[in-house]
Structure formats: structure tokens, C-alpha cells
């Protein structure tokens, strides 16, 4: 396994009181595999990504896990220097809005060069040559000129290409793509997704794609993890999830799919109620909004159970039925 996560928890002790954003997430990721994490905004998917990079530590944020390993190396115990070499070197990350994720006062080329030189012993000019070729690789026209451009002189799509160029610069083992296309026009979205898949396939890079866009995920991921209120409620191969969603939440999510395309980033209107605060409830977090919930759902947290080939779900109702079927 490239990445192995067991019982990852993220706790915030913010001004609004303590609050658990990620609540016992576990999953594995194989080399070159593409996993999508799907869910509404605020469900904790980005926190998972940031926690993997150890970008959430300190200042009232507490990250814990039974096991969090990249290639068998525990990420949680690395010292500051080692974790820096992981960031960008072994796990790269791209963000939702590339125009704000790039430093506005530094030419984009220099930002890529900076990334390269942070991880590889290359001279300034060699790094620049590499950056140039990366720009060509990610399909930036007139790369020479673009190296010297500032983010505000580039379009959103172009900025995201720069981000991708930066992400693949140090040949990382894994790429965290946090809503990489959300801020883009629909036509550009497709191009960027294609590019992303392209470069990951080419270098054998594993990808964790975080998105609420079912369309994007369908075409890109091998596996899908559905998160709700800080926990993974269902995980399984993409086709299985789309074809036979097991969790009521996944089903509801898929039902609203057409609408998601229209209202980017908006909460799903057809699921009644709001996302509950994680750990606020004793039972299943989704229970208050669930139309098939039974008494047990309100009193006890459902464990994640395997119901098919690499298909796991955390739901009393489904697993009981499925379990019955299996028996």
C-alpha cells in the first residue's frame, strides 16, 4: 500500500468551541490508484487532505490516527524537516482556486522554480529549464513568456495548469487534488481533468481527488469514498457506488446529481435538513436526515462493514439487509 490511513481524527478547538471535523476516517491507497473523496461542503474532505500533509497542526487543531503511513513510513512522527520533504516531494497538492493559491507578487515561473529547488539539487538555470518543459507538458502556450507572468495576468485555467506543473515537478508519489476544477468554467474543467488524469497516468502517480462534483468523479476515479459529517459512510469502486449505492446518503447524493452541476458548491437542496455537527449525535450522523432511519440509527454509531468486493458501508439499515442477504 502506498498510503494507509486508520482512524484519522481531526479536532478543532476554535473560538466556537471544540469540534471534530474528521471522525475516524480509514482507507488505503495503492500506487497509481485514483481515489475520489466525495461529499458536501463542510463534510471534512479537505481536512482529510490537509491532515495527510500535516498542514493542520497546532493552534488548537489536533490530528490523531491509529495509523497514518506513506509507504510504510508513519507520517505522524516525522520531524519538521522530513515532513517538508514529503510535502511537494512525495505528496503534491493542488487547490480549488489556483488564482489565489499562487502568490500574487511572484512570477509563476519563479514559483515553480522555487518548488523544484526546494526538493531537488538543481541550479537555478536547470530548474528554470525544467519549469519550462513542465509548462510545455501541461499545455501552456508560449511557456517562455508565461514563466515571467504574474498570476493576475493568467486565466483561472492557466493558473491551474501552473499549479499542476508545480505539483508534478518533483515527481511525487501521490497528488492531492482538492476540488481542482470547481472554480473553473465547465469547458475548462474538462481540459484540466483530462490533463490531471493524463499526467498521473503517465507518471504512475496516485491521486486523491476531492470533489462534490459527481460528474467529475465518475470519469476520473477508480474508487470513491463518500464522506458525511467527518466520516466515510461508504467506500467502493466507482462503478459499484454509482450503480449500486448502498448508503442512503450516497443514494440521496446521486439523486441530486443533475442539480449539482448547476449550483456549484451549494448544499444539496433535496436532502432534507442540514449537515449535523460531527460527534454531536450518539448514533448515525445522517440519521436525522435519513428517510429510512430506524431506532437503532439514533442510538448507536454504525461501524463500517464490508458488503461487497472492496465495497464498505457504514449503515445499520443497509448492512443489516445486506448482511441478511449475504447469509
Amino acid at each position, binding site marked *: 500500500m502506498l498510503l494507509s490511513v486508520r482512524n484519522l481524527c481531526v479536532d478543532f478547538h476554535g473560538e466556537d468551541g471544540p469540534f471534530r471535523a474528521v471522525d475516524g476516517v480509514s482507507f488505503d491507497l495503492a500506487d497509481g490508484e485514483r481515489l475520489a473523496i466525495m461529499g458536501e461542503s463542510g463534510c471534512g474532505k479537505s481536512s482529510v487532505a490537509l491532515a495527510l500533509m500535516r498542514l493542520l497542526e497546532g493552534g488548537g487543531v489536533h490530528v490523531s490516527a491509529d495509523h497514518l503511513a506513506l509507504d510504510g513510513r508513519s507520517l505522524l512522527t516525522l520531524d519538521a524537516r522530513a515532513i*517538508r520533504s514529503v510535502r*511537494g516531494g512525495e505528496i503534491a497538492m493542488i487547490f480549488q482556486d489556483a488564482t489565489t*493559491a499562487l502568490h*500574487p*507578487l511572484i512570477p509563476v515561473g519563479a514559483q515553480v522554480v522555487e518548488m523544484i529547488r*526546494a*526538493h531537488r539539487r538543481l541550479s537555478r538555470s536547470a530548474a528554470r529549464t525544467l519549469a519550462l518543459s513542465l509548462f510545455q507538458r501541461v499545455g501552456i502556450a508560449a511557456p517562455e513568456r508565461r514563466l515571467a507572468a504574474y498570476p493576475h495576468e493568467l486565466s483561472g485555467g492557466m493558473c491551474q495548469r501552473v499549479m499542476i506543473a508545480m505539483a508534478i515537478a518533483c515527481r511525487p508519489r501521490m497528488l492531492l487534488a482538492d476540488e481542482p476544477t470547481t472554480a473553473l468554467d465547465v469547458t475548462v474543467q474538462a481540459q484540466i481533468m483530462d490533463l490531471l488524469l493524463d499526467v498521473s497516468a503517465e507518471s504512475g502517480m496516485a491521486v486523491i481527488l476531492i470533489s462534490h462534483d459527481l460528474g467529475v468523479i465518475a470519469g476520473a476515479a477508480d474508487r470513491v469514498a463518500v464522506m458525511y459529517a467527518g466520516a466515510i459512510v461508504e467506500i467502493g469502486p466507482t462503478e459499484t457506488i454509482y450503480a449500486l449505492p448502498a448508503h442512503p446518503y450516497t443514494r440521496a447524493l446521486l439523486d441530486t446529481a443533475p442539480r449539482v452541476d448547476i449550483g456549484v458548491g451549494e448544499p444539496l437542496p433535496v436532502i432534507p435538513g442540514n449537515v449535523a455537527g460531527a460527534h454531536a449525535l450518539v448514533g448515525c450522523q445522517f440519521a436525522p436526515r435519513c428517510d429510512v432511519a430506524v431506532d437503532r440509527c439514533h442510538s448507536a454509531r454504525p461501524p463500517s462493514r464490508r458488503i461487497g468486493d472492496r465495497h464498505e458501508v457504514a449503515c445499520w439499515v443497509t448492512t443489516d439487509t445486506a448482511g441478511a442477504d449475504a447469509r
Partner: protein
Amino acid sequence: MGSLILSRLVQAAVLLIGVSVIGFTLMHLAPGGPLAFYTNSPGVSTADLVQMKHAFGLDRSVAMQYLFWASDMLRGNWGYSFFGGRPVRELVFERLPATFELMGLSMALAMLAGTGIGVVAAVRKDSLFDHLVTLWAMLALSLPTFWYGLLAIFVFGERLGWLPVGGRSTLGAGEDIAGHVTHLVLPVGVLATVIAAQWSRYSRAAILDVLGQDYMRTALAKGLSPLRILIRHGLRSGMLPLIALAGLQLPMLVGGALVTETVFAWPGMGLLFVNALSYRDYPVLMALLMLSALLAVMGNLLADIASALADPRIRLGRSA
């Protein structure tokens, strides 16, 4: 760049004219006048007053007086003080170095220290250090400087006798740099503390603002060292508003040390201004007002240019 400067210069000229008209009118509409001081001198007869009024040009209408003053000013003649008859330009320029020294030094020290403190406080937001800095800044800014000045004089000068309490040099000591520095300690200390408190607030806010930006997270995700992130990514944008602010504080060089100069008997512009005010020495007052306005205009322009140079997003030639 050229057109930016040009258009700003035109604006500046218009503004300077406006300021001068308002200042001049205000001054002359006000009760009391420069002759009052002569009146108080029992040897001056009413006929003398009429004569003086004429000599000072005060018997003309305000509009005419303004025109005369303005045309003199444009030709580089700042006029003559009503008291002592010295050329105003001479009066002002002999005071400038003292004020620039006091205020410049205080501002330089305060900006350095204040920015440093503010950056650390921002980086360690909500730490004990941050809270202490906040408390210190609030206290420093909550009492008038003269209070601190008098306290410092009382403690360090009178009681402990460590430092000279006023003036700019040890009299008659010649070129005595050490003596000069000791005279600077208290006034600069008081002024710098207060200005530093302000700057620490500015820079803390600016850095906090930057730390919350997406690109700072990107920099972290790139695996850069925190030091590099703070300096190359954080300060680079955090300093932008501070640079602009520094430019805008340029006029403080003239009027900022008003009270401190009085307390520490510092022979600078502040004292000149306060005295000119109480004597109603119109030519001196106008000169100081215009100088301050000029510095304000320059400060604005410098702030804009500095921002334009430092921030590629501001397109040159268009005012920010």
C-alpha cells in the same frame, strides 16, 4: 509611470492651492491677530499699530493679502516673520534638521521594532507574547505622549539623573556625539515607543491578513521552510500596505513631534509651530501648513509609486 506622476502632480498643485486658500482664510477670519502682541507692549501707540498693520500688509483685504502672499511664495519668497523680521524660509530650514532627526530616528526605530514585534505577534497569534504585545500597544496608545514624557523626565532625569532631560546637546561641549546621543534617548524613546505600538498593530494585522491567504498554504504544501515562507511569501505581501502607510506618514516628520518637542525642549518645527500659533505669526504658520501639505502630497505620491513598484497588480499610469 510618467503619466501617473504627472497627473498626481497636477492634483497636488490643485490641492496645495486649496489648502493654502482655506488655511489663509481661516487664519484671517479668526479673532486676535499678530498685532495683539504689540498691543500688549505699553510703549506701542495706536498710530504705531496702524503703521505696523500697513507694514505687515494687514490693512489690505484678505483676498489681496492672499494674492500677495501666493505670488511671493511662487517666486520662492516665503515672507518675513512678523516677530523678529527674519525670513521665514530661514526660520523653517534651521528647525528642520532637529525635527527630522528626532522624528526620523523615532520613526525608523519604531517601524523596525514595531514591524518585528507585529510579525512575531501575528505568527504566534493568541500566544502569551501576542497578548502581551496587544496589551502593551493598547496601553502605549492610551495615554498622551506628554504624560510619558514628563514621567520619563521625572524618573530618568530628575530622580535617577541618568539622562539629560531636554535640549539637543550638551551646551558648549562642542562636537560631542556621545552627549548628543544621550539627549536623544528620552525623546526618541518616548516617541518611538508610541509609534512602535502603532506599527506593531499595523504589521500584525497585515501579516495576519497574509497568513490567512491561500497562497501561504500553497507555499507550505510545497514543502518550503517556514522561514522562507514567512520572508519570501509572507513579508513580501505583508509589507505592501506598510510601505504605503510609511509614505502616508511622511507629514509626521513636520508635525508629528509637536507635543514631544515641547516637553523635551527640542528645537524643532513643533516648537516653531506652537510659538507661531500663539503669536499669530501668519507667514510662519502658512509656511508650516504648506510644508506639511507638501509632504502630505509627496507622501501620497511616494506611497502610490512604492505600491506600484512593489505590486505588479497595480498597473502603472493609473492611479491606485
